[in-house]
């Protein structure tokens, strides 16, 4: 029978999950938790959970009078506001304060999957990558003390005592000597793994504002969370571009602003080179997410479509294009993209993201294919 505290803890977790689920759309839209993320956990600001408690009534209207007064003076009603207006602000926290609860990224991904009804991903092909893993499945006579196998050490010492005739059943003292010591040891085994890589491409040209980049950042957080849950770890690469593209680290990806023109083909070129040289499609489940305001310089579209068709679309599990609306209205790239490829490729998914509220639906569209 479980202890009461465990039952309470389970109940608390259920309540927290319920609250997160209730407010998921808000969390997805506003990205409040991104700054609170560490390796495995994310702190989620929750509205104060209501704890049931007694509320005292006024116990009827009457009461015993105290203090000065003449005989016959009516007794004042308790709980009435004192004359002189409203009192000063209190120093205690009010109801609007938030509490933070830690939740694992896996739990968060599960909630996201449940709420958006996301299908589990079916990795393409077989697991063709092998990774070396240490498995503690053998015993050695030397090793660090922290790995000493006490039971086996005792058994060996016991055997030695019995075989040498020094064991006394009436006084069963067994003292291991150095030669009795047994230690746990490992073997390196090759474990087949399904590898997944996500390549983010973002337009950082002059027309992309900080607000648009925040939309991208929030969407990327949720995409990462879901894919990492599905694959148990993913490789993430970042490409930024204006008229020229380059691969960068995560921080640079979200904090760079350039003033160059928008040439989406430059990002595709870098992405295609990555697929060719570092992430061969035969060994990886590949996901490309591209975000831009869609204001591509006219003549670049053809070049971009050529690279996309030849070198990206046939090789990836998913190519998702999210068009984030700029102050000048949404660009026209998404229309050209749909016009050119239409339904020819089931790996091509597009979504328009007018503002933060559109992230929720965009994620559903991107990840709803189960690829």
């Amino acid at each position, binding site marked *: 029978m479980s202890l009461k505290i465990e039952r309470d803890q389970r109940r608390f977790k259920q309540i927290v999950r319920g609250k997160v689920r209730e407010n998921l759309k808000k969390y997805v839209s506003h990205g409040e938790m991104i700054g609170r993320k560490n390796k495995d956990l994310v702190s989620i600001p929750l509205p104060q959970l209501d704890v049931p408690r007694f509320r005292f009534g006024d116990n009827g209207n009457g009461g015993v009078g105290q203090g000065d007064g003449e005989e016959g003076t009516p007794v004042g009603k308790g709980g009435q506001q004192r004359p002189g207006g409203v009192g000063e602000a209190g120093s205690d926290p009010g109801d609007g304060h938030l509490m933070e609860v830690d939740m694992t990224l896996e739990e968060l991904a599960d909630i996201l999957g449940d709420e958006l009804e996301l299908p589990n991903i079916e990795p393409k092909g077989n697991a063709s990558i092998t990774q070396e893993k240490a498995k503690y499945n053998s015993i050695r006579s030397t090793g660090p003390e922290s790995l000493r196998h006490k039971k086996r050490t005792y058994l060996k010492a016991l055997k030695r005592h019995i075989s040498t005739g020094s064991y006394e059943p009436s006084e069963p003292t067994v003292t291991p000597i150095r030669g009795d010591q047994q230690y746990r040891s490992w073997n390196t085994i090759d474990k087949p793994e399904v590898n997944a890589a996500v390549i983010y491409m973002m337009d950082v040209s002059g027309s992309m504002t900080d607000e648009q980049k925040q939309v991208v950042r929030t969407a990327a957080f949720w995409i990462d969370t879901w894919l990492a849950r599905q694959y148990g770890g993913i490789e993430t690469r970042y490409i930024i571009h204006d008229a020229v593209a380059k691969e960068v680290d995560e921080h640079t990806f979200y904090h760079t602003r350039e003033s160059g023109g928008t040439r989406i083909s430059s990002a595709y070129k870098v992405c295609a080179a990555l697929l060719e040289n570092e992430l061969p499609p035969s060994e990886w489940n590949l996901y490309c997410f591209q975000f831009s305001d869609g204001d591509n310089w006219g003549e670049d579209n053809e070049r971009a479509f050529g690279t996309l068709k030849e070198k990206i679309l046939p090789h990836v599990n998913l190519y998702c294009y999210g068009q984030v609306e700029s*102050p000048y*209205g949404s660009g026209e790239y998404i229309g050209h993209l749909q016009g050119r490829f239409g339904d020819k490729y089931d790996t091509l998914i597009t979504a328009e993201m007018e503002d933060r509220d559109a992230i929720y639906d965009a994620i559903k569209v991107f990840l709803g294919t189960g690829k």
Partner: protein
Amino acid sequence: MSLSSQLEKQLRTANAGPANLAAQEGDAKVVCELTAVDSLGVSVQRLELHSKKLEGLPTEKLREVADALAKKVSYLLEAIAPIEIDDEACTIQMRSMPPHRAENATSYYEVLVTAGTISLKRYNKARGATRHAEPFDLTRQVLVRLVDDFAAAASSV
């Protein structure tokens, strides 16, 4: 006669309907496509200044032209500023900063400074539709001043 004086003269004789005006002075030529002309102002579809002084300039120099324009042209509906610089096409894209946002559409000026031309149009972009150039109204004095400022910016490098 300066470009603006030639344009003023043509405007005085223009009829009320659409008109295409053009004027040349030295190595600069201005083309103005008007959808309407009346006694107070004009409705402009496109304004272009072609200048030999701009030809072959690198993007850094074109950026100086764009900066000069951004400083001078402060009398339109919205201020204009450089947004994107495309080295490959050798073009500076300037737009209204910020654009005008109506309930379901956004409109803004777009000035392209290329190696040879400065052009001005106004675009309207309704949600879910492609953007299209739309005529914008200027008084005759503002049109003339704009042409002067384009010419001055082109000559500034």
